[in-house]
């Protein structure tokens, strides 16, 4: 038992710099990476070019509301806000939204309407 404990302790001493280094590496990678992007596909509940989009999404019957805004800097200009402003969306439309998380919440990068066959 004593020898096993000694072996575990020895291995821990040997490995600790590697583990620490790996963790530090991961931290620096996280800092360098762009914000994670998310894609949602669901039904529009409410939409306004100024306030953004309320999207109903979910799994099975477990439905959740996702609020996506336009980037403030882009209002009235190009980029994400332009893609929001240029859309004629109404409740019940099916859309696919690509967005990223920012301090103010989810910010739309791209919104496209999904055509659902009738009926």
């Amino acid at each position: 038992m004593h020898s096993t404990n000694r072996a575990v302790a020895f291995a821990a001493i040997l490995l600790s710099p590697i583990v620490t280094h790996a963790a530090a590496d991961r931290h620096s990678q996280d800092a360098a990476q762009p914000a994670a992007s998310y894609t949602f596909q669901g039904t529009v509940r409410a939409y306004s070019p100024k306030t953004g989009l309320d999207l109903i999404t979910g799994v099975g019957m477990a439905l959740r509301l996702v609020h996506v805004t336009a980037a403030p800097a882009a209002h009235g200009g190009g980029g994400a806000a332009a893609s929001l402003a240029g859309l004629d969306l109404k409740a019940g439309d099916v859309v696919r939204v690509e967005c990223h998380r920012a301090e103010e919440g989810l910010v739309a990068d791209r919104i496209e309407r999904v055509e659902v066959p009738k009926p």
Partner: protein
Amino acid sequence: MTPQRVAVVFLFSLVGCAKVVKPGDPVPGLTREQRDRFARGKVVFDSAFTPAAGLGPLFNATGCGECHEDPAAGGRGDEIEIHATAFHAPTCDPLVQEGGPVVQQHTTPALKQALGIDSEPFPPSATARAHRTSPVVFGRGLLDLVSDSVILSYADPDDRNHDGIRGRPGRSLDGRIGRFGRKAFVPSLHEFNAGAFPTETGVTDPEQPTEENVGGQPLPPGVDPVADPEITQDALDLADDFVRFLGAPTPVKLGKDGRRGRELFSQIGCASCHIPTLRTGGSPVRALAHRDFPAYTDLLLHDMGPDLADICLGVATPSDFRTEPLLDLRDAKRFLHDGQATTLEQAIDLHGGEGSGARDRFKVLSAADRSAIIAFLKAL
């Protein structure tokens, strides 16, 4: 004995040996590993969760098996759920901002202490309330594998054949063809099961790791101490496999009456929507792939008339319902989506809208012929 006779005897013996699937049995032909997952998944399905294990804070049942239990795990239950949505034609609002379409009937002690409520508040913006029984989930893995093209082949939204039946597919929020739920709102069995844990038991899982709010308000601090997700992907996948592998019960052997009833069932038009046999598409699970099975549904939405109308959901209007698969009727004590019928005759009588033609033809049959149809249905 000639080779031909030997072949005939062999074929007859194969038919005679065809495995009878009883309610709660797995589909025949699973591998040993799949049977093992069926058994382990049943343990998850039958688990009763506690608040310390993730139950709630809002819930309808402590586990899947509480509502799907009769006559075996995966069967039906006597619980009645309450659902609510708002219909502002042509749009259906599932009221996610007020807690979603399922109005949970129980709260954990911690939530009750924090808010003083025994159940989720009924959404104030709802335009309708619906009652929902817990159906059998037998054969759902087979229904899951019926392809979109097969479902669409039965659709006739413009009633081009002038039979008064206008089936159309349900759709999910993201536009896919729905198969599951009384309004054909959910496209796949896995999604239905992954959504059922948080919706019915309040147990979050990796595919829906967010708890539902309470009437649109965030959960009070401290009422949900278990970190999300509250079950692992492994546990979810096992429960999913248990449901997926549940077979469609083999209809009981019919007597003369039953055989006559089966013919009449088709002749009077019931089988126009309750399609007796469906075929699955491809699947990595050989026992489920390319199988004909007793389904008695077209998985389409039909307008069942104003008397049955309750809530909308997705593209389904209040009077639209997906054709109910007629599985394990032999054990059923209540019928229709809300359990309001206590006999099969009542259930048929309550068919309106697109079902009214078959209903009317049933009603003018002789008493013996009506009994024959009931005998047939009770063998399912």
